[in-house]
């Protein structure tokens, strides 16, 4: 039964996207009301599926289900296998995804009423859901990458939802560059793993390691995977794009950067946990990144005075903590933290428009009287220290400056090359002029 449940789970969103795409290409104008009605049933159906699947997996834990579909394609020795793993981790994440996206669909029904981009919005969220389900259940990096990319694409296109304004497009570009830099990590990890182990299968890799396949080279898989997880999770050093990504409609910011997309980073690490457990050094690294990001984000977030950016930094700091939990081996806690954190942030994002009135009506906030808060920060440090820390934090500890320097470093050979090329061209031109001069 679980098998067929899972088949439905993975093919329904694909079918749904196909229907939407067909509607779009046949240029049928679907009335907004019909679309939102259809969405209602669709999301109910998906939540029901995900819930049943989660219940079934929960009852059969710790054993899990492997679902194999026929291979997609074969090139030489390489086979692209459509193999899935249905375990508690994947089922939980899929349940979280369907439930929250259901909430967002319902929310957007009124929020995006009369909006010309409603169809686009729905399609991108459907893409997100499909991508997340693929990521949740894939059994190998190769397959996971498909879902990973779909999530990234949907995210970027929703940041630039208002594409007739320049700022959303600029920030979407920033997001896509960060994504691509880290996506290289997944590809490199997959290539490395294929090279050393001839597979990227999450189930097989740990057993291979258990049986003594080893070598220093294998650490690199983990390094690449850790690297790959950073952009989506907004961890250091890839964290400045996330607060800038709040350009789309509020519900899309909520679902991506408060909830589902941002937790894909820790999800990837959890997927790989059995592998990571063999390399404590990697866990130390993950913990360090998480810890630094958490402290960094919470300090910077404390100086932010707008609702969404503030929430973005708060999210980064909690995801940093989840990294630490994973590093310490508390995988159950990490999963629970992910679920509970995603729910809380979604709610906070959705309600962020109430902020001004909430403060105004709060009986504790009085007129013409600064809000009194007993902060350790204010009691422990003198004004001059606080001012210095504040200004540094306000500028994100100059992260952009340092990243810029590093990028410039990478580009140095290119610059040298360009300089020499320019000189050569100049010489070349002169030479030509000399040769072609009128006699």
């Amino acid at each position, binding site marked *: 039964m679980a098998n067929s449940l899972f088949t439905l789970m993975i093919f329904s969103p694909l079918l749904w996207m196909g229907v939407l795409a067909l509607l779009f290409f046949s240029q049928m104008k679907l009335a907004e009301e019909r679309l939102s009605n259809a969405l209602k049933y669709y999301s109910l159906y998906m939540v029901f599926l995900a819930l049943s699947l989660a219940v079934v997996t929960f009852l059969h834990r710790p054993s899990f289900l492997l679902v194999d579909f026929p291979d997609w394609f074969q090139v030489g020795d390489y086979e692209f296998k459509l193999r899935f793993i249905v375990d508690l981790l994947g089922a939980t994440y899929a349940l979280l995804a369907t439930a929250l996206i259901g909430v967002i669909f319902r929310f957007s029904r009124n929020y995006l009423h009369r909006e010309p981009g409603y169809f686009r919005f729905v399609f991108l969220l459907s893409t997100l859901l499909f991508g997340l389900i693929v990521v949740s259940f894939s059994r190998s990096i190769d397959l996971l990458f498909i879902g990973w990319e779909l999530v990234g694409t949907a995210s970027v296109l929703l940041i630039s939802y208002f594409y007739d304004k320049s700022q959303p497009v600029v920030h979407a570009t920033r997001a896509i560059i960060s994504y691509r830099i880290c996506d290289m990590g997944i590809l490199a990890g997959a290539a490395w793993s294929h090279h050393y182990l001839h597979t990227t299968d999450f189930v097989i890799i740990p057993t291979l390691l258990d049986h003594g396949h080893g070598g220093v080279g294998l650490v690199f898989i983990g390094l690449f995977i850790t690297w790959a997880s950073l952009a989506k999770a907004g961890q250091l050093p890839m964290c400045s794009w996330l607060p800038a990504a709040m350009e789309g409609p509020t519900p899309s910011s909520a679902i991506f950067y408060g909830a589902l997309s941002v937790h894909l980073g820790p999800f990837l690490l959890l997927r790989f946990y059995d592998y990571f457990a063999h390399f404590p050094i990697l866990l130390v690294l993950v913990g360090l990144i998480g810890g630094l990001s958490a402290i960094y984000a919470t300090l910077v977030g404390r100086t932010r005075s707008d609702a969404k950016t503030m929430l973005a930094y708060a999210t980064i700091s909690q995801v940093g903590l989840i990294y630490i939990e994973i590093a310490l081996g508390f995988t159950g806690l990490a999963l629970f933290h992910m679920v509970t954190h995603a729910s809380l942030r979604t709610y906070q994002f959705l309600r962020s428009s109430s902020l001004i009135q909430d403060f105004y009506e709060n009986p504790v906030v009085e007129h013409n009287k600064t809000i009194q808060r007993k902060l350790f920060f204010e009691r422990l440090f003198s*004004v001059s220290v606080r001012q210095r820390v504040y200004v540094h934090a306000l500028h994100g500890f100059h992260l952009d400056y340092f990243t810029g320097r590093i990028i410039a470093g990478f580009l140095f050979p290119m610059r040298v090359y360009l300089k020499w090329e320019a000189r050569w061209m100049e010489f070349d031109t002169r030479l030509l002029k000399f040769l072609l001069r009128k006699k």
Partner: protein
Amino acid sequence: MLQDLLKSIRPKLPIQNPLHAFVHNNILQTFEHLDFHEAVAQAGKLYRGRPYWETYRYTQLYADEKMTDADIFRAVDHYLGRYAPVPSLSVLGLTPKEYFYRLMFSELSFNDDEVQPKITDQSLWEHCQEKVQGEALVLSRSRTFLRGKEYWEKYYNESYSTALQPLAIRLISSYLDQGQSFWANPFRGQGFWSFFLYDLEVQTPYANGWLQTLTQKGQTYRGQTPEQVIEAELRLTGLPESQWEDYLLEILFDLKGWSGMVNKLETEPWQAPVKAPEIRLVDYLAALVMMDRAMDEFHAQAHSLDLSLLYGRREPLELRSYQLALALYQVTLTFKLPSRWMRDLSSRQLISIIDEVDGSEHRDRARLWHEAYEHHFHREALEALKGHQVGQLTFAHRPYAQIMFCIDDREESLRRHTEEVDGEVETFGVVGFFGIDMNFVSVKNKRPIAQCPPVITPSRIIHEVPVSDAKAFQRWNLLRGTSDLGLYYNTRTLFRGFLATLTLGVASLIPMTIQVFFPRHNRFLRRKLRDLFGREPETELQVLGTDPGVGYSHVEQAQIVLAVIRMCGPRELARLVLLLAHGSSSNNNPFRQAYGCGACGGNAGIPNSRAFAKMANDPIVRAEVEKLGYRIPEETFFVAGFHDTCTDEILYMNQKEVPATHREDFDRLKHHLKEAAQRNAFERCQRFSSFDQTTGLAGAIGHVRERAHDIAQPRPEYGHSSNALAIVGRRRLTRGLFMNRRSFLLSYDWTTDPDSSVLRQVVLGGIPVAVNINMDYYFSAVDNDNFGCGSKLPLNMTSLLGVMTGSQSDLRIGLARQMVEIHDPIRNLTVIEAPLARVQALFDGHPRLKNLLYHHWMRLAVIDPESQKWWMFSQSDFQEISFEGPVLKGFTSSLDLLKRHEASDFAEINHGE
């Protein structure tokens, strides 16, 4: 020097309040000393906005027969009357009328490379090309640029918005914040300027690009005052002093919302949501000027350009010979000129004609369309008023109840429905704060709330005091406040955030699910919860005061009561008088204040109607009223009511006190009002496209309630959308006239007001408010991106002051797109029923009204009851209106009309006939 500059700059900045205290304003209030069209053209340059709709919207309306040729001709006539910059018409061989008429329907694009007309007439085209061979024209509407910004953006693709603005916004928003961020800005007491300099100092080691130039500037200016810095930089620009103001304004208007807010918090610090930080416009301006100059210097250096050549440069809007030929071709076709018209003209002459037509197109076209459109509606409205059967309002006997509504345009429909449901109710429209200019302190909140129009400074403070046990309530209230605040800050930090997330995270699914899926139950559950832990106590308003500044004395109360009664001018007070204040509930809506009662500063008017009823029911006050010469019948009882314009619920605040003798009447009134409110909801639902028409009346009330409590709803109601009229007069003018919620209704009976003191009160209290609302909607509707707030969807609350678009942007001003999307931007037409001379005297004698009228920020018609003549103020005097005897469609009731989906704005309701 700089002081003078600042003095003339300040009034030009946007005047919007922080959002929690939003009030509708004519956003160009400080331009009212100019003629409307002149002012919007000037402001359009500052705000970089379009002062009228795009022309295609008007042509669309024309195609839909929302205006006629007659309207267009009239607009042209009017225009010619005061202004005739017509290009050399004799050369074109056109009458001015023909010229403008054809211009309005043309689609000229002279220097637009993308939209090029198709060449159909080949021989003409060749002729045109021949004529202007080798010529070029720099259009006279070319602009002078004062700084580098546009230049870098255009030619070097270097955007200020990605470099300069993020820094400026980050600094100013964190400085102005009053509690939204976790850390309060530690520079708050020291001023923005020292914060800015300190910031530059810290940034120095990490600066590259233009920031480096800026930090260097920061070092050179260390120890100098902002005034010195601005002056030094201005001198460095090399611009003549006459252009300094424009230069500074341009810089300030790059971030117009923030600039306006800085100015606001400096000049009116009490408007701050919590406590305004010390801020001076000059500090902020100095920082902006420094940044702007640093940016210019950096780019000039990078591209080896001489800045002195850039400053004061004229942007060449140039037509080359090919474009000139195209222009000539378009002119020939547009104005239907014979192909030989240019035969005898020199190319110089032709070019000057093109220049003139181009200027005229940009200046006149949209304006003429707008005038024509407005005129059409105004004429329609006046004809409806004239054609309406006046005089049917005679009560068989004394009405058993009277209702005093607010003048608000949204109450027009409820008033109408009430009268239709119960013909024996008399209704009035008074300004909804009922003359009580108070700061109100409720039991829920210690914060005093100004419950009066924003132009009035509250003179008294009135406290609400509990009369039943309030301990539990106060404890719960305090607990709720503290925990709300605690949760707000502590869910966003690291360790406390960790604990909060783990404990509350999953729990937050419950309220989220309820609020998203079951919005109507949300409020119900909240109330249940509150009743369980801290039931709101019975309260009383302390209207009587002895200390100065607290409450009113009996005599003052009597004056207030009498003033309101005089304004309504009833023949006799009924047994029941209901004071129906109004407000609007909505959820998760940053613009909530914009939906409230404008006369109560955007708040709900409950305290006002309660206070008034309490005053008027007090026998001592009644005795005082009698001393002033008016007798309130002993049996009259005043009921304090409240109408929620969003949910269409009606509450009665003192219904327990209704005497047993009045019970029956009160129940009848209540019952009928409920029915009327239901019909009102149905009428409002006609504008909501998500309303299911098949659910009918019962569905309508459910639909509007759901809107109010839904956290996902960007349009809880449409507010004042489509407001366009204000009618001052007796109800007999308008009773039984369907006006589609387009009119403010102010009661005024000229027969009981020999010295026009009441007229003065009524007009001064209501008309400026109506014009403010009208103008706020006007500008947000014509160009929502630049005069308004843009879409509501990506808004981001900031610094407890306002909203930004996306992660970071200018502080937005005006109304959101979703609030004004169905609004027709039409200037307010006020119709006053009173002797002409009195109206004239009133308007001439009041500075703001005079500006509004003579500079055409509003239109005014006067129905002179003595001579039975109708007058309209046109250019600078009143002219008699001639009518063409229109026929209004008749319906048995408003409901009947709505069910037939009648599209017109005006109709006759002959109930019962």
